[in-house]
């Protein structure tokens, strides 16, 4: 993990050390129980009061076990699970409504049939009418876009590598906020490896739709997209009771009578539309057009035109979302399946947190490191002049707005520990803290409670690649206690032999 620029960053968080391979708590525990020393100069949170160990004892331990190892064993860290709890029956019911929103109530009545279906009165004429209406809608749609598309085709193209800076900046901003959570998560070696080699690279995660080596346009798919989204095409289908997803007959009609003839007549124009009219994203990567047709032309040696700078900032915002996707814990992935609220809603909720922290800083031009990374610099390594606030787009959840709303509602239902619960679920796989089972179903309300001054921690595993159980150090780190304190709260429990689903007790500190 890394943070942006610790001197300038907005309250740069304290980041936890990477998890060790193993913890040797039981052997050292008796000697360490009285330690209270801080970790001066370390990035770890200060130790909490309550136990004492003489400096000479600490030095002896450091010599014997190494400074990092000793620090991990005896120094408590920020409590990442503070105020979390297993949701109550009332909370579970409310969460269930958000995770599984009820389908819209049926309005009743009989579904309208396609008036062009065989057997319908005058079906041949209705088919001909729908074909004409759809073809007209597609033609008008494409004709309306074409002048802009041709300008894009003729415009200069930006080097794709220019977008790696926004990618690095996005990764840094996300790691600064959530790095402590992800680094304390149980992950299998392949996942740790895959994350370690991840970076937004031109030609790998950032692809140019205008580059034939990166992208092959599909005129038929664009035409189909137009038929499904153009407002006049949709109205025509509604009027005729047409639904291409309902029957093979309707799909064949649309493909053979409308799409194929249109593609044959307008293939090149549709290719232009596919290349320049869309971006495309899948988790962790984007395909963009780097063409930039704008009024403000670049001056040799001068700053990029405002539209170009806006594009870099816009890409930075998109890549924050895409990078967060790569940090989703495998247990959360396995649980959520295709649930868009948990998949995109949670991802966008964290995106919003990052961007609402950083966009005001960016707009206020308060972080030179961030701006230099996103916009690039001049030949002398200086920031480009004439920065304007409007070059940084305002935050907008776009198509994810409803998913985010529900994700935030789940967070709010869980009260003061809600923020930590959603983070622990998404980044560490602690789905029990948001009331969900590994199947994605809602959990049952807890029937037992922890002793006074304690809370339960359910041991999590990364279920991918053969599995990996949380270590004692990871559990301690997540809960803001030392391994020694963890062992002390669970006498007789072998912390090196935990299984997924086991409960261990965590001493809760005021």
């Amino acid at each position, binding site marked *: 993990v890394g943070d942006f620029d610790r001197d300038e960053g907005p309250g740069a968080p304290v980041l936890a050390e990477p998890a060790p391979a193993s913890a040797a708590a039981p052997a050292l525990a008796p000697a360490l129980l009285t330690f209270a020393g801080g970790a001066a100069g370390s990035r770890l949170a200060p130790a909490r009061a309550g136990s004492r160990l003489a400096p000479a004892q600490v030095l002896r331990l450091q010599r014997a076990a190494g400074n990092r190892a000793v620090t991990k064993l005896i120094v408590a860290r920020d409590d990442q699970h503070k105020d979390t709890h297993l949701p109550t029956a009332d909370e579970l019911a409310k969460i269930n409504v958000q995770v599984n929103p009820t389908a819209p109530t049926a309005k009743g009545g009989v579904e309208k049939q396609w008036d062009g279906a065989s057997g319908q009165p005058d079906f041949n004429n209705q088919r001909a009418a729908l074909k004409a209406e759809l073809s007209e809608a597609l033609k008008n749609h494409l004709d309306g*876009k074409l002048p*802009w*598309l041709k300008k894009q085709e003729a415009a200069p193209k930006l080097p794709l590598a220019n977008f790696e800076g926004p990618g690095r900046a996005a990764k840094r901003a996300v790691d600064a906020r959530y790095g402590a959570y992800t680094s304390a998560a149980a992950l299998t*070696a*392949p*996942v740790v*490896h*895959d*994350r370690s*080699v*991840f*970076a937004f*690279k031109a030609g*790998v*995660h950032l692809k140019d739709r205008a580059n*034939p*080596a*990166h992208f*092959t346009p*599909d005129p*038929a*798919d664009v*035409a*189909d*997209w137009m038929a*499904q989204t153009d407002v006049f095409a949709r109205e025509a289908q509604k009027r005729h009771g047409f639904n291409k997803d309902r029957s093979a007959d309707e*799909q064949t009609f649309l*493909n053979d009578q409308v*799409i*194929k003839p249109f*593609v044959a007549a307008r293939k090149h124009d549709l290719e232009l539309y596919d290349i*320049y*009219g*869309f*971006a*495309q*994203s*899948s*988790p*962790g*990567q984007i395909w963009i*057009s780097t063409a930039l047709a704008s009024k403000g032309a670049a001056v040799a040696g001068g700053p990029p035109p405002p539209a170009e700078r806006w594009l870099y900032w816009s890409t930075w915002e998109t890549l924050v979302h895409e990078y967060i*996707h*790569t940090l*989703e814990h*495998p247990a959360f*992935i396995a649980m959520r399946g*295709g649930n868009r609220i948990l*998949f995109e809603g949670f991802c966008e909720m964290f995106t919003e947190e990052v961007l609402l922290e950083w966009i005001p800083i960016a707009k206020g031009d308060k972080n030179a490191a961030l701006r230099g990374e996103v916009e690039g610099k001049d030949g002398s390594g200086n920031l480009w002049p004439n920065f304007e606030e409007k070059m940084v787009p305002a935050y907008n959840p776009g198509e994810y707005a409803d998913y985010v709303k529900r994700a935030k509602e789940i967070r709010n239902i869980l009260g003061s520990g809600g923020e930590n619960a959603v983070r622990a679920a998404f980044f560490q796989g602690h789905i029990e803290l948001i009331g969900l089972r590994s199947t994605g179903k809602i959990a049952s309300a807890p029937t037992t409670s922890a002793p006074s001054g304690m809370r339960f921690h359910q041991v999590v595993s990364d279920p*991918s*690649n053969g599995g990996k159980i949380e270590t004692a150090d990871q559990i301690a780190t997540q809960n803001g206690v030392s391994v020694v304190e963890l062992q002390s709260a669970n006498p007789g429990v072998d912390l090196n032999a935990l299984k997924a689903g086991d409960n261990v007790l965590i001493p809760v500190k005021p």
Partner: protein
Amino acid sequence: MSDVLAELQALAGGDLAAWTGLPAGLTVDDAARALGPASAEASAMIGWQLSSFVTFAATPAAPHGIRAWTRLHDVWLLEIQDPELRAPAAEQLGTPDATDRSGLGGSYRQDVYGARGLVVHVSNITDAVRRLYAIAPAPAAEILDGPLGRIEERRVPRV
């Protein structure tokens, strides 16, 4: 191993009929013997999960190259975008074990040939193959329940 290399070369040439599934334990070095030198390793998301991969050079039948997704250097998935097949997929492979919606867009479907370890995303309009995935043979339902059932791309309008 020579059979595997021959199958890999056939796959890279757009010949699907010879493919019998990705063998367990195939390493990047093994694949490189059939496909040429691999790129440096990177990682990306595939079917909602992060995975490492290397890329082998483009061929006439694999115009964007062949991406080999790896798990600690073993290849678990081969991916070819916009493959130029020697003959249409249905002609080479026959009837698929299962067909499902494709996450690549509304005009595509995915055909699963579980016993052969192949999944092809095909245009419903042109029958062109948009994406080809080669994996270890498995029941179609099992394949669709894993990462390959979650391949997804979103089209985002700019104008």
